[in-house]
């Protein structure tokens, strides 16, 4: 396979996706939309990990053949657990406040 994509391009794509996700976290008021934006950011980080794994060449001794892929796998695992718990907490808050907006959860504001 003619591998002539520069590493830069993957990094730019990941950086742009991460920035879009960050804007989404800051801009959206709905808690589930905030969760979606966090997923975008995690995916951007995954693209970075796999790109660096692929372009690094031979991995250092003691790291095994697939260090970046394994790390991305763990990121996926943590993201899945985070979404499950996050949706549970959002549902709990929705039952109590009858709203899924992050700025309505102000019981502890002074």
């Amino acid at each position, binding site marked *: 396979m003619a591998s002539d994509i520069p*590493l830069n391009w993957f990094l730019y794509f990941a*950086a742009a996706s991460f920035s*879009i996700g960050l804007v989404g976290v800051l801009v959206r008021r709905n808690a589930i939309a905030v969760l979606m934006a966090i*997923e975008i950011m995690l995916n951007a980080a995954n693209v970075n990990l796999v790109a660096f794994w692929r*372009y690094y060449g031979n991995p250092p001794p003691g790291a095994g053949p697939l260090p970046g892929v394994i790390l991305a796998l763990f990121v*996926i695992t943590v993201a899945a*657990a985070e979404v499950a718990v996050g949706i549970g907490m959002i549902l709990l808050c929705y039952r109590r406040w009858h709203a899924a907006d992050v700025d309505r959860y102000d019981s502890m504001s002074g």
Partner: protein
Amino acid sequence: MVQFLFLVIAALGLLTALGTVLARNLVHAALFLVAFFFTVACQFVLLEAEFLAALQVLVYIGAVAIILMFGIMLTRNIQGDDTTIVAAAWKIPALVAGLCVFGILVFGINNAVAPAGHSPWSELNVRPSIAADAGSSKATAVRREAVNNMARTVGNELMTRYVVGFEVAGLLLTVALVGAIALAHREEAEPAAPSRGEQPARLTSASPQPQAAGPSLVSSGASSPR
């Protein structure tokens, strides 16, 4: 050719990410998010990590997006009422923050100092081949072998070198499963229906009562006036 493919996929990915962030309708946002996950899977294929692409489709599109859909439907914020509209006072600072982060990341990518023995990132445009003898005529067969063996290699690595991380990830998934059920469980509800067993994809066999989720969804949706 590969560059053109990458540009198309990256443009689609950025557009769908923007759609996820900007869509008023939350269901549309979730569908854009599914498209974004798929473009990321395509990026993984371009990076020759095919097993990870399959895993991305299975876990993200198959589990995470469905859980998000359930959350959207249970909170009944499908329509773009005023609660999902972007807060105007936060729009400009958030855009400034996002642009600043993007600028810093681009600056860092362009000016990264290479580690010893490596060329800097901005000049790294030839990938080392996964196959052992990429130049020969049987490189395709070797490449196919590498693709076929990737899942096996990942399994071997998880069971030998990264076994501690693997166990901790399993513990984390178990805790997340139990915690999600404990959070979503309603004490005053009918006792035969534990609320929702949302769980990550690889724990489906441990689901307590998947059939009991139906009436609970209906009851929680009907008993919460908006």
